């Protein structure tokens, strides 16, 4: 697939990937590309099709239609070759409760057939001490199991990490540690594809985001474009008369309440700033654009169209 927005060769690409269960369309015609070395967020609420997409990539599910290639291998026919080069964290990871944490990592490392070169570093960063690893996994809290799941996915230093809801169950400190680990992977040229419904997390670490709804890919955007297209709110505290904002590009809605003027903006803020440059102001605040607003705009109703300027689903 040729995608001029990609900075490198695709680590992962799908074309028209479709998965039906009888009349239920879990995935419908999903086409996307993930470049090598990028962190790619796959965003959507529970049941949107995120895990189904990942399971087709890994060969757990057979696509009803379409194709997918991971690290150059066909997902349907070369699944073992793909799994040799990736690390995978399932959503709500289940581990062997009667084994110790260390034994789980040893066992899964042996099956991977590659040295677990990152294990110590990951355990240290995620606070999995030797004492913890000596305990049976059945005694672990949900958060501890999630940390062990992250280590098993990344301990062999995979070229591509596929992480399904990686921050699930982690406390804020550990979420920060996870983000640091993902940042380091990006710096080292590794690719990360991760699904999440935590918007702030995606906003914090991703290069690009795909939004999926009811099995459909709604849009794929880089973070900067996504932010540029969403609505912001400017709060203006006036000292003099209100400026005329009629016809100013990007100004969608103006609400005035005495000296307070609240302006809803879309796209670039520059025309708005120029329009109020001569006005007498006590204060001006433009709130940073938040991904939540775009996300909810896409989900504002199953039959609604995507917001203007959201771009194509490629």
């Amino acid at each position, binding site marked *: 697939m040729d995608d001029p927005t990609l900075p490198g060769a695709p680590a992962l690409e799908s074309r028209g990937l479709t998965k039906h269960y009888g009349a239920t369309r879990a995935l419908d015609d999903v086409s996307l590309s993930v470049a090598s070395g990028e962190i790619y967020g796959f965003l959507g609420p529970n049941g949107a099709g995120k895990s189904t997409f990942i*399971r087709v990539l890994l060969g757990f599910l057979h696509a009803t239609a379409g194709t997918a290639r991971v690290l150059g291998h066909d997902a349907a026919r070369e699944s073992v070759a793909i799994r040799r080069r990736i690390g995978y964290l399932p959503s709500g990871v289940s581990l062997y409760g009667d084994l110790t944490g260390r034994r789980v990592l040893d066992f899964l490392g042996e099956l991977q057939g590659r040295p677990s070169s990152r294990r110590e570093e990951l355990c240290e960063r995620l606070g999995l001490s030797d004492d913890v690893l000596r305990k049976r996994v059945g005694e672990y809290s949900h958060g501890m199991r999630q940390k062990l799941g992250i280590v098993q996915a990344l301990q062999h230093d995979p070229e591509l990490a596929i992480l399904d809801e990686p921050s699930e169950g982690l406390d804020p400190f550990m979420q920060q540690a996870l983000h640091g680990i993902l940042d380091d992977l990006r710096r080292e040229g590794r690719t990360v594809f991760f699904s999440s419904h935590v918007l702030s997390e995606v906003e914090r670490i991703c290069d690009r985001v795909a939004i999926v709804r009811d099995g459909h890919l709604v849009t794929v955007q880089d973070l900067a474009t996504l932010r540029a297209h969403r609505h912001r709110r400017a709060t203006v505290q006036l000292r003099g008369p209100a400026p005329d904002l009629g016809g100013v590009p990007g100004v969608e809605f103006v609400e005035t309440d005495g000296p307070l003027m609240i302006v809803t903006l879309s796209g670039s803020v520059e025309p708005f700033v120029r329009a109020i440059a001569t006005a007498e102001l006590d204060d001006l605040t433009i709130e940073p654009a938040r991904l939540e607003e775009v996300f909810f705009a896409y989900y504002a109703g199953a039959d609604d169209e995507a917001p203007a300027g959201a771009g194509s689903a490629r």
Partner: protein
Amino acid sequence: MSRALFLQSLQNLRLRTGVLAAVAFGWGWLMVFLFTTFSPAMRQLAQASSMFERFSQFGAGDFFTLPGALTIGFQHPIWIAVLGVIAAGASASAIAGERDGGTLELLLARPISRRRVYASILLALLAVVGALVLATVLGMLTGVGVHGLTSELELLRMPLVVLNGVALWAAFTAVGLAASVTFDRPGPALGVSLGFLLLNYFLEVLGSLWQAARWTQDWSLMHRFRANELLTGSVPTLDFVILGGVFVAAVAYALVVFPRRDLAAPT
């Protein structure tokens, strides 16, 4: 086969294997002990009553000869239950249990094909089944030695008995594992596996107790374990072929079905 998965599967079964092997060994010895203790009295009772003689026989076994007593040991519900824990229980829950518990996707996220996963688990189960049959025979041989009955048994034929026993339980294990790859949850797989075992047992017992229904034994895999015949001289080749055929059919089914199945996210 994956060595790591094979060893881990054995590790998962080690406690059950240890307990069951001890029970199987004791059971084998008990059969010899019961024979030495009660056989003379039973022979006298059988001479006095033909009805007693008829009901003192169980399947192909009886308590009038040492091979007959050992055969009863191999056909008794207790021994079937001991082997059934692994051949019908552990096999049925092996893959469906991993699937239900969510650990199967951790295995399959590794560079290991589903067929290798299946083969590794099957071989581990067969190793345990073989160990249990062997433990039973060792218990019998120990009893034979302790009670001084070596002259009543052709010891060199015992390996054939082990082989026949392993062939029988390997067939049940393969059927159990075939059920395991078919279902997402262990419950239905266990139902199929246990149902198959019980059906075979029912057909065997029905035919052995009721003359008019003797034909039902021909349809039971348990009737293909011919310990008495093996110990008394003949080698029932056809029975080995039938047991081998069931094993191969169940393995072939699993190797075709398992890689083609969709493994949706665990519930």
